């Protein structure tokens, strides 16, 4: 599976980068991993203003696996971009490990994304005219890993999503599902603290989807990687420990997944691990 799955070493030990970069994104002790308070997002202004988020309160603990559901246009991707430190809220606060993200500089947020976050975009966002292997290597380049290690880890990540043999294909030569899996491999290759996945199985058939969900759940359980994923499919949401429903830019309700559904697909005893059962 994932390279670290075989060695058993934790992500923190494996993570590359300088100490200074780590200190820049070090946690404030005793805080939840992710904490949104009254977050709003308004696009445009005046009469044309579009309120994508109207005041989101959301707390996600380290080691949780959370599914976000809701109708199209309800603000899921918008919220995800804010969680991923790509976008800033119009109002409200976002704390990551107790650190005020809004107060961070551009570079600090970049380092947070580099070392703590892995993003799977709704539209994949792979580099065109660039092979699958190079796409997956890209985050590791910014981790300044030696070329051989970089290549090895990228190959292992591609193998984990079932793309062995496709390393030298460019996105244009890959099917939609294959591109999606390259995007997932790229998010996982740095062994992040949090994986934010915007419809990671949106282009996959149900068998492939279950493989990917198994992979994400394994990352969550064995490495304590926090997973936040958007999905429209209840079957996939059932893999999560918690489901957050969005409606018109608000959190409509939070619920535990339907237990039997998750158990049926996962073949696991509970299917819904309690928050905090991960390594951290």
């Amino acid at each position, binding site marked *: 599976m994932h390279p670290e799955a075989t060695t058993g070493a934790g992500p923190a030990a494996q993570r590359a980068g300088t100490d200074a970069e780590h200190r820049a994104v070090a946690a404030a002790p005793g805080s939840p991993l992710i904490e949104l308070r009254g977050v709003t997002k308004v696009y445009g202004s005046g009469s044309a203003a579009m309120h994508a988020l109207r005041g989101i309160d959301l707390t996600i603990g380290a080691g949780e696996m959370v599914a976000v559901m809701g109708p199209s246009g309800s603000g899921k991707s918008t919220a995800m971009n804010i969680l991923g430190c790509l976008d800033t809220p119009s109002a409200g606060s976002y704390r990551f490990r107790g650190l005020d993200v809004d107060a961070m500089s*551009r*570079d600090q947020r970049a380092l*947070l994304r580099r070392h703590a*976050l892995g993003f799977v975009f709704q539209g994949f*966002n792979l*580099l065109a*005219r*660039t092979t699958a292997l190079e796409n997956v290597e890209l985050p590791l380049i*910014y981790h300044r890993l030696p070329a051989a290690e970089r290549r090895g880890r990228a190959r292992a990540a591609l193998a984990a999503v079932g793309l062995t043999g496709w390393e030298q294909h460019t996105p244009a030569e890959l099917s939609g599902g294959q591109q999606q899996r390259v995007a997932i491999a790229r998010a996982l290759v740095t062994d992040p603290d949090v994986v934010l996945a915007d419809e990671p199985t949106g282009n996959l058939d149900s068998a492939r989807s279950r493989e990917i969900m198994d992979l994400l759940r394994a990352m969550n359980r064995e490495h304590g990687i926090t997973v936040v994923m958007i999905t429209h499919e209840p079957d996939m949401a059932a893999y999560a420990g918690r489901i957050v429903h969005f409606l018109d830019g608000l959190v409509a309700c939070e619920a535990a997944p339907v237990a039997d559904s998750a158990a049926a697909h996962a073949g696991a005893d509970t299917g819904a691990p309690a928050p905090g059962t991960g390594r951290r």
Partner: protein
Amino acid sequence: MLGNSLLLAIREIRRNVLRSFLTILGIVIGVAAVIVMVTLGQGATAQVKTQIESLGSNLLIVRPGQRMGPGMSADAARFTLADVTALRREVPSLAAVAPGTSQSMTAIVGNENWSTTVTGTDNAYLLARNWTLAAGRAFKDGELRAGKAVCIIGATVRKELFGAQNPIDQRVRLKNLSCEIVGLLQDKGQSSMGMDQDDLVLMPIRTVQRRIKGDQDVDVIYLSVRAGRSMDRTIADVERLLRERRHIGPFDEDDFSVRDMREITNMLAGTTTVLTSLLGAVASVSLLVGGIGIMNIMLVSVTERTREIGIRLAIGAREDEVLLQFLVEAVVLSSFGGLLGILLALGTSLLLAGMLGVPFILDGGIIALAFLFSAAVGIVFGWVPARRAARLDPIEALRHE
């Protein structure tokens, strides 16, 4: 970090070979133009030098005093004919040794008069100064020894006093001396220094000494160095002999000067150097244009690759890393252009040098300079696009289609 940027830059350039090549074409041409201009210019300079040397660079002029021309120190003793004889005898690398003593005088023939310079010398003067006779003859030994009133005139003097008439065997009056014209010099034309070389009258030196100036002095000695003999060694030999004859102590300065034509050579070479720099400057304008070409393409590239930049920022690239990547890309492009330009320049200058018959002289300095300049062009003109890329907002960039 630099290594990574280099890697990314090379990947990007490889992905767009044709465009990369077209981008750097301006730099290639600019660098090539500068190097070709300078190389050919230096070749031309060298050629001018060799031409001057072949014309008369084997001429040495010895004068008393340390300064040439009117500022001669008055106290330095003149030379004598004995010095001339000694030089002839003891410096074998000299082809000709001619004494000279000159006086400005008015020459009169009938109603015509013309102010000119009368130089007392002997036949060695013709050899040393590269004169040939257009008509008549040189001085006879008897005329030289006895100081007869005979003269050889230059083309200008002949024209002014005789017009188209034959001057040979005519008489010219110089002050109270009536002088028979025995020879006419072939005209040389205007000299490069702006003096009329053909405005002269030659007389046996004894005639001038006794009957015009009334002294025994030799003002100047003209020496011609044998072909193939070292100029510097001959000068040293002449100096040693003259120091000895003039009793100059080992620690005293010379009280005479030996000049060769190299000063004039250097002056002319200086002119071509100025010309070379001028051409080089014009050529470097094309380097500037090449740089603007790079900036243009890099700006297009940043717009085109906005999404890519967004992806890089999203996975954790910092501003300075994106900046460096684009800057390195520009520098790699432009210095690669510089390298190609150098190769093109070498080929072109070899070809042109052959066609123009100019020697091919390679200057490592200008090549290094052109290369460094092309790299600098990358930094200067890559800066604006690179900063624009680095300042992009990640989410805006990701949404860019």
